[in-house]
């Protein structure tokens, strides 16, 4: 560690910001920003290991985060009454048939020793027939399932397990998807890989939005169980009432602060765990190998390193981390809303975090996640204040002033753009540059 003091200063500055928000706005707000900051930090750790340490451009953050969210639904929601008997098994078997046929066609593609055109024809025929077969099998059960109390359920439901299990499962789901994506797309060079991952993540979101039997689609899944107690329960507890009396804060507020603190506690444990694992990995020979591949693929290849395999490995690890963070985010929200997954908010914002913080440095990614998310939330009040300040000499009835005040919330996009451009121009290594090892 070359500059421990500097990193410590940055983090204490950030800490001070939260205290200021707590003092001047509210502690509730400070804590909710803090929780989301931790999640953002974990997501940017995932991108950092891919981009900062292996040079892989992954623009699919949104998709992996949404898969983590899906894990919440699958793990923690109660199973819908009768849904499995009515058609759940048929749907699953239809999908399994389709996946098996895809594997078959991949196998044939590798084994068959014939002219390429014939290969295309054969694989297309296999995949098309199995697709229509799958549609034939699943179309009617999907309709039945979606018509079981559509206002309340209308989907398969989950396994009714504790929600915390969904975090590792979310990571696993993301890792499996990353394996499939990596197998097909990692051979592409950077620009294409960026566009391909962005496209695939959009496809994932489209599936989640429209397959109601799986995730209720745009109807959202509400009321996900929590790993922490509910505010109402806390308010009747004696010790909570005592704290409220002692600190002279209203009971509802103190209970919601306690809930948020317990979330923060859980999240910090995960963040530190992932950080330690990543630091160990990157200091090990494996980490050196990754950086060697990033810096010069050809010579690493000449040294006998299997670049394709390493890239796939690091792609899966990074995506799994994003999946875990996505699952945590959905647990924190308490609901799964496929519509809320936007590339601007997930993919590109996380990339800004990594670039600002300093690609290649885990501490940098964490501080980047904290700073950017903090400003993403606080840019709105800052923008409003700025415009009110600039136009303070204009009368309130002025059309331009009211228009500006109305649209001040969009200042944050501009802020983010400017921050990113300025960093890339004047400090391309970010706030905490990569450690020279």
């Amino acid at each position: 560690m070359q500059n421990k003091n500097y990193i410590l200063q940055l983090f204490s500055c950030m800490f001070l910001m939260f205290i200021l928000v707590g003092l001047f706005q509210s502690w509730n707000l400070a804590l909710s920003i803090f929780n989301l900051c931790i999640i953002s930090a974990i997501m940017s750790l995932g991108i950092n290991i891919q981009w900062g340490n292996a040079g892989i451009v992954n623009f699919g953050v949104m998709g992996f985060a949404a898969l983590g969210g899906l894990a919440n639904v699958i793990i923690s929601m109660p199973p819908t009454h009768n849904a499995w008997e009515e058609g759940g098994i048929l749907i699953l078997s239809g999908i399994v048939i389709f996946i098996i046929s895809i594997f078959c066609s991949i196998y044939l593609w590798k084994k068959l020793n014939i002219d390429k055109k014939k290969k295309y024809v054969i694989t297309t025929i296999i995949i098309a027939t199995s697709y229509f077969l799958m549609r034939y099998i699943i179309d009617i059960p999907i309709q039945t399932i979606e018509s079981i109390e559509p206002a309340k359920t209308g989907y398969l439901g989950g396994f009714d397990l504790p929600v915390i299990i969904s975090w590792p499962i979310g990571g696993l789901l993301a890792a499996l998807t990353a394996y499939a994506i990596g197998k097909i797309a990692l051979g592409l060079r950077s620009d294409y890989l960026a566009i391909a991952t962005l496209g695939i993540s959009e496809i994932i979101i489209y599936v989640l939005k429209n397959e109601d039997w799986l995730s209720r689609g745009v109807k959202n899944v509400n009321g996900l169980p929590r790993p922490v107690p509910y505010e109402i329960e806390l308010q009747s507890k004696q010790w909570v009432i005592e704290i409220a009396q002692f600190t002279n804060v209203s009971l509802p507020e103190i209970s919601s602060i306690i809930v948020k603190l317990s979330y923060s506690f859980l999240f910090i444990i995960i963040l530190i765990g992932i950080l330690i694992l990543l630091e160990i990995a990157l200091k090990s020979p494996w980490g050196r190998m990754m950086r060697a591949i990033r810096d010069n693929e050809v010579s690493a290849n000449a040294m006998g390193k299997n670049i394709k395999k390493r890239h796939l490995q690091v792609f899966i690890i990074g995506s799994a981390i994003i999946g875990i963070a996505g699952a945590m985010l959905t647990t924190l929200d308490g609901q799964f809303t496929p519509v809320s997954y936007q590339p601007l908010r997930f993919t590109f914002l996380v990339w800004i975090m990594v670039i600002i913080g300093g690609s290649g440095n885990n501490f940098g990614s964490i501080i980047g996640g904290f700073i950017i998310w903090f400003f993403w939330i606080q840019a709105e009040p800052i923008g409003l204040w700025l415009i009110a300040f600039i136009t303070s000499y204009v009368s309130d009835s002025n059309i331009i002033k009211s228009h500006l005040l109305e649209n001040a919330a969009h200042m944050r996009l501009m802020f983010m753009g400017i921050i990113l451009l300025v960093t890339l121009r004047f400090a391309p290594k970010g706030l905490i540059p990569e450690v020279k090892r």
Partner: protein
Amino acid sequence: MDFLNGITLIANYIIIPGLTYGSQLALGALGITIIYTVLRFSNFAHGEFMSFGTMTSILLTWLFSNLGIKLGIFPTAILVLPIAILITIFYCLIIDKFVFKFYRQQKSKSVITLIVSIGVMFFSGGLIRFIIGPGDKNFFDGERFILKAKTFKALTGLNEGLAIKTTQGVTIILTILLVFLLFWFLNKTKTGKSMRAYSDNQELALLSGINPEKVVLITWIITGTLACVAGTLYGLDKSYKPFTYLHLVLPIFAAAIVGGVGNPVGAIIGGFVIAFSELFITFAYKKIFYYLLPYEIVPSGLLQILSTDYKIAVSFIILVLVLLIKPTGIYKGKVI
């Protein structure tokens, strides 16, 4: 007669919308391709440039309508298009001067410039929402249809109607005009040739006395024009919302890659391939089968390959397939 009805149905729901959407995508993809071949990076901010162009068109349309200047049956936006184009070009040039120029001189990796273009995307998106707001804006005026479904039915006596919206007609005609102009410029004029030379081999072009600054300037002029026209036409046809233009970037990239990155002809073909496959795959074929086959053997159900909700996802699926099978695209372009 049934056969003609079927044809009309396809023309009304696939061919005309496909040609319109394809033209819009083709113009967008051309912009991305030109930037890619000359300046060597994937410009993620292109959607926002289109959005910026549309925004200026809308503001000018409002201004002109207030002054009482109209273009008869055509939308006023067509009249203000030249001024909007100039403003968009000006914006592109400013962005280039303050942002992209630095990385060009540094000879940065194309990935870095790509990330820079994301910064530009954020900034422009914020600026646009700041000026015009995030809401839906409909700025279409003039006559709605060139050919009404009713008139068509009365003329031909068919069951199915064929309607052509003014915006669809204008889009297709303007696209043909613009593409023709662009190819004439690239292939016949001296400046266009020098631009092609520069994109083929920068060092050689510099040696033979081509002024790189001029090439860059012309590249942005072309890009700004294409972006403004494509954006305005898309906004006229659907309706303008800053948010949708961010999502338009991916189909446009898909079009550029499917056609073969770095090849202008490929970009146009790619645009139409994407547009038509979106429509063909999500079209419900039930009615057509009723016209073409005996009533009894038509199966129940809508006979869609994918539900309409997946319309835009189709372009991404095609993109992924093309990247897998033939990364160079239909017309062999440069591999990034």
